[in-house]
């Protein structure tokens, strides 16, 4: 049947379908990661009205504009402090940052590491396509050597970040990485990350068809996506220090970290309760939350 359906897509309830078709290239990996995210939101049974999604600038940065949640498309690299402000103003919000490798780890690097250090209760989804796509294919801190990009026209030579290593060192409590073709596992990790209190980070390795794949003659986005998937090796709890992704080599994927640490809000409450006692304006709520924690642990 070659006609178009009149029915709505099963994920239409969380999509701004009035803005579709979206801007991403054919065979780009971002659409698939977005789809996994939407599935994860439903699997985590989150209240759509108590969520906020913030993105930065770049191809992945456009995600905020397509999701039917309170969504904020902010400036380059600054999604995380914006998300921090949202969370601090309303601790009941589930705040998600959805952005690209360049936005998060280059210009946004400082904010990434501090939000992880603070264990700010946000979930960061990083679509890593090893390049700055939106602006025409420049090198990113994740670009492996000797990839060709428009600012490394003779081949990249800087060592790339291992994002999981960076985040573990800074204090993230949940770190996972999958390729965009690992749809079900990616959805599962995203679900876990959304439900995990504290700073959770999911890296989704995705193909950039028009720029990275084309400039490096790696085929179509489809070929590259299959390559990433077929050359990935699942190793849960792998040592994050050794997880930098080299050019067209094996990619270790899996859930690398899942630990417990007090969140910024818990630390803030605890400290002020300690020093100010009942003079702390949140003394009652803080004590109740601490009691709940104790009960939860004992249960």
């Amino acid at each position: 049947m070659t006609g178009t359906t009149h029915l709505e897509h099963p994920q239409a309830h969380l999509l701004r379908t009035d803005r579709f078709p979206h801007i991403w290239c054919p065979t780009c990996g971002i659409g698939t990661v977005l789809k996994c995210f939407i599935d994860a939101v439903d699997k985590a049974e989150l209240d759509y009205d108590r969520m906020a999604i913030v993105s930065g600038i770049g191809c992945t940065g456009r995600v905020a504009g397509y999701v039917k949640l309170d969504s904020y498309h902010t400036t380059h690299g600054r999604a995380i402090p914006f998300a921090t402000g949202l969370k601090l103003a309303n601790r009941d919000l589930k705040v998600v940052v959805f952005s690209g490798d360049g936005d998060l780890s280059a210009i946004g690097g400082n904010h990434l590491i501090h939000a992880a250090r603070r264990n700010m209760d946000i979930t960061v989804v990083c679509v890593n396509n090893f390049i700055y796509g939106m602006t025409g294919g420049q090198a990113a801190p994740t670009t492996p050597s000797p990839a060709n990009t428009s600012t490394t026209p003779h081949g990249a030579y800087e060592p790339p970040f291992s994002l999981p290593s960076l985040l573990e060192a800074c204090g993230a409590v949940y770190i996972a990485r999958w390729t965009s073709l690992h749809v079900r596992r990616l959805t599962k990790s995203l679900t876990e990350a959304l439900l995990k209190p504290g700073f959770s980070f999911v890296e989704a390795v995705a193909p950039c068809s028009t720029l990275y794949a084309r400039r490096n003659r790696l085929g179509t986005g489809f070929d590259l996506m299959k390559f990433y998937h077929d050359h990935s090796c699942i190793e849960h709890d792998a040592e994050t220090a050794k997880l930098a992704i080299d050019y067209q080599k094996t990619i270790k994927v899996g859930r690398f970290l899942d630990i417990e640490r007090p969140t910024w809000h818990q630390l803030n409450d605890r400290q002020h309760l300690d020093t100010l006692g009942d003079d702390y304006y949140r003394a009652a709520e803080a004590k109740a939350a601490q009691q709940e924690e104790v009960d939860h642990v004992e249960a």
Partner: protein
Amino acid sequence: MASADPKRVLTGSHYLDGDHACTEGALSAGCDFVGGYPITPSTEVVERFAARVPKVGGTFIQMEDEIASITAVLGAVWGGAKAMTVTSGPGFSLMMENIGLGAMLETPCVVVNVQRGGPSTGLPTMVGQSDIMQARWGSHGDYEIIALAPQSPQEAYYLTIDAFNLSEQYRVPVMVMLDECIGHMTERVVIPEASEIEITPRRMTDAAVGEYLPYKVGADMIPAMAHAGDGHRYHVTGLTHDERGYPVMSAECHDGLVRRLCDKIRDNADEIVRLEEDGVDGCEVAVICYGITSRVTRAAIDGARANGVKVGCIRLLTIWPFCETRIRELAPEVKAFVVPEINYGQLSLEVERCAAGQAKVTLVPHMGGNVHDPADIQRAIEEAAR
């Protein structure tokens, strides 16, 4: 109009410096979020806030840099808080991109700049007034903001409250341009009863779920806001957008948006501008001054008057929007304007522009580090009168 929350208002008579008075003004206005970063001579504002809010309610977070501070402030406002950040010249420069985002998203917030000598690292502990143009033009693109300049700790208290009120009324970032002298001078600050303090409430939407348009406006050109978590599930972006909040990259949409962002302030400039005038009617020379310089100028004016010069004084409480109407009105009537400022000519350019050649404009510059010698200002007034 609502009145302030008595729990947050430190009613009474105090000795406070300008920085501390600014904090009290913010608390009285209902500010419950500050994202800050230390920078001399503004740090005391956030230090006091960090000490006070765990008792009266609110959140302080020292962010990793000024860019994070202003961005966290924007996020906090969209999350439902009343938010402020505080900085000086170098931090002000860092914040500019996101002040632009604040103007573009129409986010009500307050940015305090306790000015010091610049450019660059300049004179960290000493006075300057050289960020005046930057307050207006610092970010890229066409937009308008409001900037206020107190001349005493008492005024720092009141103008900070006014800044919050103006930001809510016009949905725009508002700057409070202190300078290091005002920030670090200790004077009596009388804080009134909470019931005497008027707070402009945030303009929230009353649209039904599914019908809210973030940038739909009426005749006053100011849209109604919704916070994250209110259930409207809207989208806002720094890209040029239409009333749905969706990015629309067309010249037509851009024209409409930019005009509205500017006109909502420009068309209301006469209501926003506050001046304090003394002896201006029939004067030969009008002195235009602001901040600490306006106090130094008093001695110069008294001296000039004693020497028979008919000199008037216009003190700007509102730096931006600039008091164009008043200057244009006065220019044909006076011989000259004298503009003393602790910079190499910033506000004087505006005075010149509006005087449009109908009156001489004499700048009395002083680069910074300390205040003018009143004799220099007096000499300029007397020369202008000849």
